[in-house]
């Protein structure tokens, strides 16, 4: 039992990482109803951008987060109209088409990344990535790596900012109206095209910043995207698709399950447990943990 505090802390920190992967993804789904298969690839591109900026300038990668956000915001803003076109088609099954479109994007991005960056794994050095905070008293011993703490703070700030933006600004009002009813929102004067572009831009920007963070905590590589796409899906579905407030809880649950399973059960069954839990929760509560998905 002496490990329990550490297990919980590890779970929370891991959960923080999953929040960063999934929060913006959930926002886009809520507004555009697109399951973006390229989420992992946006993360990967962000990670490499951070890697090279650090390599060229020698400055800490966290300094570049705003630059990377702006860069990828613009890219996302420019890509969105194509997705919008696919999704607003009347032929075939637009939902499926959107999904397949981003699937194609993901394959293309991976090919591009392998061409440009090569096959090797790498890592982004940061001043935070070395030390850790140690607590060792009253028979309890807890270690919190600084870089993971930074990750958690980043995750919570992004969540808070998005929450503020959605609830307190006019833009957020438009976004929420759009998520609730596309046509009615249009009638009320919400420019669905432009709002969609902003949202997608924000999502791509946040995902790219997340890539830098993941590069500092874990590793980077041209084929890393797929792994994170899986976790993004997991968290977003568990939270209820498009239900932003559910994301932190779902992410924490996923982190906790992984941490507890690795420490107390057979670690090789960790992913099995993760997928079985996701499946069962979906069956019991088809719209996510809180039943609030769209």
């Amino acid at each position, binding site marked *: 039992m002496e490990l329990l505090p550490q297990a919980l802390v590890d779970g929370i920190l891991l959960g923080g990482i999953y929040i960063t992967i999934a929060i913006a993804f959930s926002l886009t789904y809520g507004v555009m109803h697109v399951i973006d298969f390229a989420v992992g690839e946006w993360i990967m591109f962000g990670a490499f951008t951070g890697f090279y900026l650090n390599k060229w300038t020698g400055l800490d990668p966290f300094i570049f987060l705003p630059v990377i956000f702006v860069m990828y915001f613009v890219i996302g803003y420019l890509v969105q109209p194509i997705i919008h076109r696919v999704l607003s088609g009347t032929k075939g099954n637009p939902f499926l088409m959107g999904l397949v479109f981003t699937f194609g994007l993901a394959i293309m991005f991976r090919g591009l990344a392998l061409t440009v960056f090569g096959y090797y794994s790498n890592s982004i050095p940061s001043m935070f990535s070395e030390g850790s905070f140690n607590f060792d008293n009253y028979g309890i011993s807890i270690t919190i790596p600084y870089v993971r703490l930074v990750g958690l703070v980043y995750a919570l700030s992004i969540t808070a900012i998005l929450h503020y933006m959605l609830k307190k600004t006019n833009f957020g009002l438009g976004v929420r109206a759009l998520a609730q009813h596309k046509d009615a929102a249009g009638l009320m004067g919400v420019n669905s095209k432009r709002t969609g572009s902003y949202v997608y831009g924000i999502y791509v920007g946040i995902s790219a910043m997340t890539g830098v963070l993941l590069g500092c905590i874990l590793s980077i590589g041209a*084929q890393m995207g797929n792994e994170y796409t899986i976790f993004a899906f997991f968290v977003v579905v568990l939270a209820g698709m498009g239900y932003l407030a559910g994301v932190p809880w779902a992410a924490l649950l996923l982190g906790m399950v992984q941490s507890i399973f690795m420490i107390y059960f057979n670690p090789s069954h960790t992913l099995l447990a993760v997928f079985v839990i996701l499946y069962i929760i979906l069956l019991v509560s088809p719209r996510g943990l809180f039943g609030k998905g769209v």
Partner: protein
Amino acid sequence: MNLRRAVLSAVMCITTLFSATQLFAADAKSTFKVGVITELSGDLATGGNITKRGYDLWAQEVNAKGGIDIKGKKYKVELLYADAQSNPAAGAAAAERLITQEHVDFILGPYSSGVTLAVAPVVDKYKIPMITGSAESPLIWKNKFKYTFGTIPPINFTGAQSIKTLMEMKPTPKTIAIIGSNDAFSKATAEAYKTAAEAAKLKVLKFSIVPSGQDMTPLLSAVKSMKPDIIAFGGHDEEHVKFVKALRQIGYTPKGLLMHCGITDKAFTDAVGKDGNQIFGTTCWTGTAKTTSKILWPNAAAYAAASQKAFNNPGDYTQGGCSAAGIAFQVALQKVGATPGMSEDMRTKLVAAIEQVDVQTFYGRVKFATSGEFFHANVGLVPLTIQIQGDKIVTVGPKASQEAAPQYPMKEWKSR
């Protein structure tokens, strides 16, 4: 009508492409056509491209010397690549294509054991010899494929040496935690370490297999609380990086950290920087290994220099193994006096000659087992324990091959 035209033109397109390659196939018989099946794309492309470097360097060197000298006449080699796409089915198709379309004389084999297992029955069927310079799963050799050989000894042959080296450290380590990723190669590595540790009376505090690509921090937190002297890990490149970073982040420095050969690759040391210092590894070749040879490269250092020149990378044991696979063929071909466009009879003789190969190369001694659980795997090599010391990778065990004394215990992460 449109449809018919579309279908017809598609069919014509494909047939033209097929016949076009038939034309290229007709070639003068002054060069050996060497098929190479390896993973140039997909999940295992990192490793596949390392094997490609090894095969390329061999072919380049042979051709620079005018070719393989067979009974006074020199024959050049031409490599024909077929991508196995990290998929066994594609590997089998690649073998079939190289054999039936390109009519290759012999084959240099895949990076991964999975693809090798799918390719081996196909080369057996067509009686085309294949030497792989990388695949090393014990499973391959247990199947006793007649036409398949490998230059890298199986991990259950090499792993024990590293544990033995660590047991010679002072103070003698008493406990070990072993973690392996759940893929064929990494799991076999972890199991080899476990068997060796148990045999050496090292207490195994934890033995865990984790799903590939996971964040192992929680597991390492548990390991930390057990305070093992040694931590051993079987995994692939990306997992090595994650593993070292996780250990560093939770701030636990074992007295010895043992990982498999992937750490000898420059990409690993680039990624983890100073945290890579003093990590132990298991391998059977390094660029500074004490080998002497009369074929192509006089010793390991000459090979490493050639590789550095060609690829800006001194090469690791996989790349070396691949070049050595080419040399093994070379020696066998000379012995039976085979010329390009071998008959089936000649290829059978060639296989018999490969079985008898016993030669000193830049890679060390190459000799394939002809019976037992290592059937057709190279058992001529001496397994090495290496350590990253500063910006160098040095051999620290066994004693006879030692280049520097091992540094033990490992320096604390935070005082680096």
